[in-house]
């Protein structure tokens, strides 16, 4: 587990220019991705998980912009890389499985043409046989290459997107809510395909989503985001069995289970405005364990168990304090 990371993100911050001032959608996020690792980023809407995913590909458009930080992919800092270099890295070294495959494919080109133009752009060999092989590997008929996106179901479109992402053998796949547009049964199938393909390629994957249950079955580590900050990261089992951050704990407790009956527990309150974040911990206003220092000082990352980190002043106090 101590191999050099394929992707390391250091202090990544993204701001959106708004009429009320810059909104910090991603705030000092750092993590490292090991070769072949599957990392899940979870969080509620507006927590910055999709913005983080798009920032990794340098696909953010104004008014969003990367304010600071580094994204190191095999020795190249993507934040500083010029556009032509980025273009060559995209898909070839770091590929995207987009959110909502419904609209991710060009409606006026056949699926095959959308593979072909990518191969051409990278000067990679890719005839019909290669495309057929890729489609087969995600469980589609080779004939899909001749079809237009509107002739495919949502699940099939998402499989085409997965095949596109793996086509050039990238080291990192960024999957931005790869299943959120699909129904539950298809979600599971697509997720299984994505994981199988990722294993075969030996690529690492950053998977963004809000379905913690689905995520738990697919990834090695989970990172929890809140108000643009990565508040806790650690192995799946530890996150679910012994969450350190109060937000993670409340997220886990709010998941419905087969055994648990009775009152469904949510998290009271709303996330803070990203334009006007509290000076201390962003979760302090909603946190049942908040004390004076939580509203003043911003918690630094500290080790949490093996292979994990948490940003909470009271993380060390353990469960008994709850």
């Amino acid at each position, binding site marked *: 587990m101590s191999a050099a990371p394929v992707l390391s993100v250091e202090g990544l911050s993204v701001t959106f220019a708004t009429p009320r001032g810059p909104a910090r959608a991603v705030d000092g996020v750092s993590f490292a991705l090991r070769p072949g690792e599957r990392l899940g980023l979870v969080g509620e809407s507006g927590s910055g998980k999709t913005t983080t995913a*798009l920032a990794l*590909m340098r*696909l953010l458009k104004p008014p969003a912009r990367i304010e600071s930080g580094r994204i190191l992919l095999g020795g190249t800092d993507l934040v500083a890389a010029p556009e032509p270099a980025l*273009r*060559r*890295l*995209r*898909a*070839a070294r770091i*590929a*995207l499985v*987009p*959110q*909502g495959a*419904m*609209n*991710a*494919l*060009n*409606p*006026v*080109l056949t699926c095959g043409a*959308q593979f072909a*133009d*990518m191969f051409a*752009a*990278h000067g990679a060999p890719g005839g019909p046989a290669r495309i057929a092989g890729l489609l087969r590997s995600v469980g589609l008929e080779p004939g899909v290459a001749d079809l*237009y996106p*509107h*002739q495919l179901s949502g699940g099939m479109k998402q499989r085409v*997107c997965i095949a*596109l992402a793996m086509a050039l053998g990238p080291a990192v796949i960024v999957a931005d809510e790869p299943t959120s547009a699909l129904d539950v049964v298809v979600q599971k199938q697509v997720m299984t395909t994505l994981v199988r393909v990722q294993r075969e390629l030996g690529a690492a994957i950053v998977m963004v989503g809000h379905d913690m249950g689905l995520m738990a079955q697919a990834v090695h580590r989970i990172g929890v985001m809140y108000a643009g900050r990565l508040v806790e990261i650690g192995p799946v089992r530890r996150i679910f069995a012994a969450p350190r951050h109060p937000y993670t704990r409340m997220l886990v407790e709010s998941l419905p289970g087969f055994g648990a009956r009775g009152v469904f527990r949510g998290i009271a309150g709303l996330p803070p405005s990203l334009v006007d974040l509290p000076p201390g911990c962003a979760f302090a206003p909603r946190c049942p364990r908040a004390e004076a220092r939580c509203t003043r000082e911003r918690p630094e990352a500290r080790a949490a168990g093996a292979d994990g980190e948490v940003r909470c002043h009271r993380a060390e106090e353990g469960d008994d304090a709850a």
Partner: protein
Amino acid sequence: MSGLGAYALNRLAMAGLVILVALSVNFVIPRLMPGDPVEQQLAAISAAGGQVGDMAAAAAALRERLGLDRPIFVQYLSYLGNALRFDLGVSAASYPQRVSEIVFSALPWTIGLLGMSTLVSFVLGTVMGAALAWPRAPLLLKALALPVIALSAIPYFILGIVLLALFAIVWPVLPAGGGYPFGRVLNADLETGLGILRHGLLPGLSIVLASLGTWAVAMRGMVVGVLGEDYITLAEAKGLPQGRIFLAYGIRNALLPQLTQLALKLGLLVSGAILVEVVFAYPGIGYRLYVAIGQKDVFVVQGIVLLLSVSIALTMLVLDLIYPLIDPRVAARSA
């Protein structure tokens, strides 16, 4: 694919139906009008200086000749048969000229003038709009866009009058009206061609200037919208060059509604610029219609109105048939 065949058949049948309805309405409406058409026509002929003679006998003869003494259903069928042969009757004002002659002699002028200027403004405006949406559009272009868009707020016939005043009266470099040099026999030679071109320049320019901005604004809006689509993001994630993304992913999709607009404009072309033809006394359909209305020449008006409906139906048919080639979703949804 059988889906495409069924789609084409469906569209063809639809166009046939529309034309049939247009023909029928054209048949029914004059018969609903108060007054006897035969007596009206006789009156019109005599008013135009024709020799009528015994009014009652002439009416009976004309009634028989026009077939108006037959049952309405038989009249309808023979009317349909005549219409299919483009036999639209005889003009009352310029008796005995046939309506079809009048219409078809005017048609090439309108198609030439309006077809050309519509296509020119479509191409220029669309290219301009696309260029304006290009993230790295040069400043000069953006500066140029402003007056062009402002011009599109002026009605084309007013623009026509202004152009006429400037280039035919204040600085008389171009002819003030007509479709060709006055008194010239139309031969297929260079001089005639240049003459026609010189006469078409001002009316054409007024149409182009007045509609260029509309095309540009519509196209810019579409391209900006399309550039925000998810498939553009994925295209970037695939590492495609900016040019390919802009053309094959952006422009290609933004062009679809523009082409629909173009087809609609071409369908309305025949009637689209009556006022321009009137301002420039251009010998096209619009001018003919204007004259016929002034002369109360019902048959010519009828013939032109029928031509308008049929031309709209036919351009819609052509659009329907080529649309699946540019947007594969269309045949799937409506077949």
